[in-house]
């Protein structure tokens, strides 16, 4: 039994060492049993370094003497002690990188800062203007092998790729496109570009989403951009005011025109009817008049006088000899 013999040898050696040392007698009593304690401790250590836990969002990558051998799933796992080592990679966790701003504290009311990130977000557009673009890249590790062993600092690479991709896409667009109509397109194209280059670099990363945050003109020109919007509003206002004035005046004038015409129509009707009435009356009178002109004429004259003279203020009747009193009378009348 070589193992047993070995054990004996070890115990013997241990005892010899104890004998050689000048120890207090109490210690000498415990020490012969030392090997038992050592075995127990060794077993604990063995289990401690052989079994390990992998979290629900992770996989464990096992290397033996530095060589990749296998991946293990979440839960309790075993590895060979000393020769195998494990690295945990959070493959299920969605991670994100921020560009042009940093989240200081996430929560219901997240706090952000922009300090020191201007260089990240300020970029040239295709028409050689400047735009300030903030964005977020959300990603997941989908190939732990590549993530760990193909590229040093894969996250740093992802940042470099993202910045280059965003500038490439923005650099091919006008500043107006980037600020307004082209936002979604920019995000999609950047997404595709980052994924493509990540694959080329074997980052082992899957891009989940590229989200454009604030896309603004740079601070010094913001006011000018706002002025344009304001002027646009002013323009609309001026036009609307003029239109409203038009709408107030013209329908009223149309109504008044209609009124004038209707009044004219009324006048016309009245005029014609009056004429017809008078004509008919005259004709009737005339028909009778021709039968006895002299007497009719006289009758009308006298009747008219009969009704008209009583209304007069002064009636002066003279004969032809009395004509010389007329000037006197005139003076008297004026003096009244």
């Amino acid at each position, binding site marked *: 039994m070589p193992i047993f013999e070995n054990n004996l040898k070890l115990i013997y050696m241990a005892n010899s*060492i104890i004998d050689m040392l000048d120890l207090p007698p109490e210690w000498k009593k415990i020490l012969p049993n030392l090997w038992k304690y050592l075995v127990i401790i060794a077993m604990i250590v063995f289990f401690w370094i052989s079994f390990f836990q992998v979290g629900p969002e992770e996989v464990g990558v096992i290397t033996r003497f530095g060589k990749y051998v296998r991946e293990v799933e979440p839960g309790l796992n075993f590895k060979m002690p000393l020769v195998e080592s494990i690295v945990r990679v959070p493959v299920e966790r969605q991670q994100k990188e921020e560009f042009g701003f940093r989240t200081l504290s996430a929560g219901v009311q997240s706090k952000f800062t922009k300090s020191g990130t201007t260089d990240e977000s300020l970029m040239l557009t295709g028409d050689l203007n400047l735009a300030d673009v903030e964005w977020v890249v959300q990603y997941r590790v989908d190939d732990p092998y590549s993530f760990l062993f193909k590229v040093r600092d894969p996250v740093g690479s992802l940042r470099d790729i993202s910045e280059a991709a965003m500038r490439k896409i923005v650099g091919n667009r006008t500043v107006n496109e980037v600020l307004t109509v082209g936002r979604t397109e920019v995000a999609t194209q950047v997404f595709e570009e980052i994924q493509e280059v990540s694959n080329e670099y074997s980052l082992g990363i899957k891009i989940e989403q590229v989200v454009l945050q604030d896309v603004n003109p740079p601070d010094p020109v913001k006011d000018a951009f706002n002025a344009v919007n304001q002027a646009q509003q002013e323009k609309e206002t001026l036009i609307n005011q003029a239109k409203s004035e038009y709408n107030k005046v013209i329908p009223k004038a149309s109504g008044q025109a209609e009124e004038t*015409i209707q009044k*004219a129509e009324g006048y016309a009707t009245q005029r014609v009817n009056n004429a017809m009435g008078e004509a008919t009356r005259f004709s009737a009178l005339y028909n009778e008049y021709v039968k006895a002109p002299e007497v009719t004429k006289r009758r009308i004259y006298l009747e008219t006088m009969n009704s008209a003279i009583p209304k007069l203020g002064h009636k002066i009747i003279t004969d032809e000899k009395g004509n010389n009193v007329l000037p006197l009378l005139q003076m008297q009348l004026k003096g009244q």
Partner: protein
Amino acid sequence: MCYPSFRCNLKDNNNTKELMSQKLIIQLVLIITAIILIVQSTYIVKETEQVVITQFGKPIGEAKVTPGLKLKMPFVQKTNYFEKRYLAWDGDPNQVPTKDKKFIFVDCYARWQIVDPLQFFKRLTNERGAQSRLDDILDGETRDYIANHNLEEIVRTSNRVPIPSGSIGEEVGDTLMNIMVGREKIQDMILESANNKVKDLGIALLDFRVKRINYVEDVRTQVYERMKSERYRIADKFRAEGQGEASKINGEKERDLKTIQSVAFRQAEEIMGKADARATAIYAGAYNQSAASRNLYSFVKSMETFEQTFDSTTTVILSTKSELYKYLINLE
């Protein structure tokens, strides 16, 4: 070898004890030596590494690129570890003038790899050496290529037609200048040219990209001023357009108002004129039948006029010769 039993060990005399401890020391030395030997003759190559073995400084055999536990000659052979993964090169922002004399900062990055560790070891010794050589080569290439192209060529990638962005875009002009080369091609050219230069250094460049381009501070201020003036110009134009449009509507309002009023006046006059004409015809038809009717008309009209014009302020001097009072003198 024979070992004394446990029992007799307890009864050992001093001589035996001496002998045993000597043996023990020898055994310990042997074990330690064995451990040192094992450590010296094996080495581990990790997934991320590659190893060049040197014997008294002279490289031996091919580089070890596969991971795992390997053997070497103890003491005389030494391991030199090199990175196998893609490595980063990040350039300093370089101030470079473009062909059209615009001063810009260009910040580039590259990814590279040690493809021939032996050559790498000979030429560059370590990563720091490599980074410094890459600085020289890539900065130089970047400078050359950027100085040979207009700014647009580095910013833009292709001649795409931009999407019109509505009224503001119409003012600024939603157009992009045509380019000849473009960013991608310039990057590719720099990469190819640099790869030729690093070929015998045992490294290869995987990719080279322009990370950031920006105007230098002075130029940036000028660009801001240009952008501002451009926007203010648009703003002024909008305002003027608004005023113009309003004036136009105002003018239309005046025109329509006058048209409506005058048309109504004309129509009314026409209507009244026609009615007057008709009335006149009717009157004429009645009064103009004969000499007698004309006579009667003037007589009747005079009578009506008397009746209407006489009131209490009127003074009439009548002669007894008049028709009315002729009977006042005599009954003749």
